[in-house]
């Protein structure tokens, strides 16, 4: 049985990982390899290229925001544009949540980013797509600090 999303990665141009969320069992060495490979395939692409790259037996849907690459690895038969906008929806939520999000926000609040991810993607599937609903929930959780 196939899982839809295999992993979500946020990397900067230098290859530093800002978020790695795995939806499949990989051992630590394998994870490191995947991170490096993804970095190698997406950073050589420019604006004239598609936002999709074949990757091993999967494909990577990615979008670049300033110096950050947001990458989702899915099955080759999955809907490219739905995941491409899934990334953007996620980025818009981060932007609202962190008030003009920047790379440093993801570094210092890494444990909160995981919460945002779990609200929107769970078990390799899209869980919630409404920005209003997600932000309301995050605000509620914030108040519990």
């Amino acid at each position, binding site marked *: *049985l196939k*899982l*839809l999303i295999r992993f979500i990665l946020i990397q900067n141009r230098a290859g530093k*990982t800002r978020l*790695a969320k795995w939806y499949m069992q990989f051992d630590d060495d394998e994870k*490191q390899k995947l991170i490096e490979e993804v970095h190698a395939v997406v950073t050589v*692409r420019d604006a*004239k*290229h*598609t*936002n*999709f*790259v*074949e990757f091993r037996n999967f494909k990577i849907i990615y979008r670049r925001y300033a110096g950050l690459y947001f990458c989702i690895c899915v099955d080759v038969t999955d*809907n*490219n*544009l*739905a995941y*491409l*906008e*899934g990334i*953007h*929806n996620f980025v818009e939520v981060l932007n*609202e*949540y*962190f*008030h003009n999000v920047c790379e*440093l*926000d993801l*570094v*210092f*609040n*890494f*444990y*909160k980013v*995981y*919460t945002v991810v*779990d609200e929107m993607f*769970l*078990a*390799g*599937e*899209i*869980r*919630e*797509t*409404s*920005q*209003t*609903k997600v*932000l309301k*929930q*995050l*605000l*509620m*959780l*914030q108040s*519990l*600090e």
Partner: protein
Amino acid sequence: MPAVSKGDGMRGLAVFISDIRNCKSKEAEIKRINKELANIRSKFKGDKALDGYSKKKYVCKLLFIFLLGHDIDFGHMEAVNLLSSNKYTEKQIGYLFISVLVNSNSELIRLINNAIKNDLSSRNPTFMCLALHCIANVGSREMAEAFAGEIPRILVAGDTMDSVKQSAALCLLRLYKTSPDLVMMGEWTSRVVHLLNDQHMGVVTAAISLITCLSQKNPDEFKTCVSLAVSRLSRIVSSASTDLQDYTYYFVPAPWLSCKLLRLLQCYPPPEDGAVKGRLVECLETILNKAQEPPKSKKVQHSNAKNAILFEAISLIIHYDSEPNLLVRACNQLGQFLQHRETNLRYLALESMCTLASSEFSHEAVKTHIETVINALKTERDVSVRQRAADLLYAMCDRSNAKQIVAEMLSYLETADYSIREEMVLKVAILAEKYAVDYSWYVDTILNLIRIAGDYVSEEVWYRVIQIVINRDDVQGYAAKTVFEALQAPACHENMVKVGGYILGEFGNLIAGDPRSSPLVQFNLLHSKFHLCSVPTRALLLSAYIKFINLFPETKATIQEVLRCDSQIRNSDVELQQRAVEYLKLSSIASTDVLATVLEEMPPFPERESSILAKLKKKKGPGAVSVTELEDNKREGGELNGASERGPEMAAVAASNASTPSPSADLLGIRSAAPIGGALTSAGSLLVDVFSEAAPTASSAAVNDDGFLSAAPSSEDPAAPLSDADELLNKFVCKNNGVLFENQLLQIGIKSEYRQNLGRMYLFYGNKTSVQFASFSTTVSCPGELQGHILDISTKPVEPLVEGGAQIQQVLNIECLTDFCDAPLLNIKFRYGGALQNLTLKLPVTINKFFQPTEMTSHDFFQRWKQLSQPQQEAQKIFKANNSMDTEVLKAKLLGLGTALLENIDPNPENYVCAGVIQTKSQQIGCLLRLEPNAQAQMYRLTLRCSKDSVSKRLCDLLAEQF
């Protein structure tokens, strides 16, 4: 709106992260980390109990250190302790640590599961979600054992909060994927399916993923989801862009949910319920319509979301493959995207069109975009887009455009990226063989392939070109000449040397008359490559040399000299040495006659059948393949069947001689080719090593090998007995005589005549071998509805023995009782050299054979045309010309059809009109035909009107293949 400042909540953590970021070197970073680890360890070991906040902070620091890539070997217990905290933030860090650093330490697992259990029963939705997310993230077997029973209950309970339901659905999905045996849906199935009706769109979004996964495994139990999904989809698609508020994304209502619904429907065939189906088709049409509307926003997010739905809808349309109208509309839409300025859309359109090309309903529509696709192959900057363009060209290729496509692929190969060369080579080789109508083109193509991308040409490809050259005497001279020229290149690929050595060794004599390619020139050319080649190629060349001695006695001395030299006769490679020694000896002691026998030209290779047929036969036992099953493959039909080109002359011979058939008259032109049995013994030994897997075996039809092309669906070999069954039928629609079938063993000719509803068909079975066919028997059967009451066919049994070289005749008497579509089947069985041969053919008895021509005036014609104006009485097709549009050829075909060709009827002199009456025993069916050629577009429009609906359709189908 919520906002968080940098690192609020845990100052110590923020300071630590800053310190790490300020480290100037890896060493400094490690030093800082070690200092921190020591500090945390001492805190955890200290006497003073830590408060929750400190524990959370230290666990979080450990997590950060782990994420930097350092090992963490302590702190797990403290993290587990956090799980039982009452504070959300502490619990959250505890769960995060567990999720990221999963550890199957059994003692901890029990503690973790205990904490999860408490949270699940806490009735606090926030805690429940944290617990569910942890299970979903870890998804271990232990967790499945502990919670697989509990989670479905949470999912369907009436008082569960929406957000908890969302998490529970996906948590269950994760457990089902890791441990399907532990998740029992039985009693919950119906309530889970009804989550599709939930008011909360987020719940539907999550639940549908679970339902899709479960449906794939248990489609029957979940099939009620189809109608629910359709009505949900319908409500979304027909809503205004603002109706769904929170779930509207850049003016597109619920794009992700729509995609998921469309994907769920792809687990099922089209809905059986007419109303549901109608509603769904309406949705799909609406989605296609929306693609044509002006965008509600210029933002790319708007168009992406809209197109995400569109592509998913197109996937569903292709999955159903039953709505021609939607398929063609989908194709037109994708056609627009092919020229879109967004690379993403061009890429996706190419990808999606590839699947459309394989549907019979949209294949033609896809083909109209060929120029754009070729252009994409040449100009796209992104290699993945070019790859898609190449895939699409391959998918849209058929006999009408094969030459163009193969040429474009070859020229692309010159610059193609290394990553895709091998695949491209195979594609070109497959297409060249599948659609070769003339063999010089095929030979040119494969030699070009070797020249351009020799390293990527696998053995199978060059084996194949040799097999075909050996089997086709009309191309041998051309092949010899072409390969000779190709070898002139100073650096040519070793594969070219192999092909060259083999072909010149066999057919070098065909070009030896030209002084520029005299025997010695040929030999010197080959030998100039010898020393640069690997051992297997050298072995092949040595065999070519000995063949030269037989072909050209004048080269004997030179070649013997070469064989005699130490580098050959004392070669350290055993194989080369043995060949040199044996060939030298052979050439010295054998008489010319013996040499000629031993080194005779290779006998034809047995033709191999297509992989599809082989597969079908395997499934059903030999000979049991019914021809109707093959109808589905008709578009794939190969063109290598040489017999089809030989038709007309043969027919003429048959007609003139048929009255006095005798074996010696050889009236159907059975070739006196070298008998296979004899060739086997004489020539098989020398060069067969090259083809060891394809060495001549006795029978043709029974050969079933897994060689080249068997991986490629729909490949076709010359004269494969059944594959071209429909081609056969089509070939005889407009004529009555010709060669019905031919392989290495057997040739079958037919001659037939029809009057009113009666027909007589003469079948001539010719044994092409020198060996007797034993137990020869034929059976004519009428499949399905034809039986007994539609066609009546009588015949006498044939003689059970057919001597080598002999021909026997059989007469069939046919009576047409009523109109029909299927053709009767002819099954032939016989033993050749002990092996049972079994083949089934369609007999070319088609409804038009019972036409009586009717002459009429223009006035009468149009009056009757109008009388036959009910929609079902008319059948129409618009199709591309497959053959010459020459007037005389067309006229001959229309006359051959059996109707009267009426002059001066149609106001447009370019058009053809015909009239006739089909005579069956039960009724007469009047038929009118109009054929409108468009020479510029190379298209035809064919319209038929008949007094019986089924006849219009059948005639239209038959005739559309003729022009």
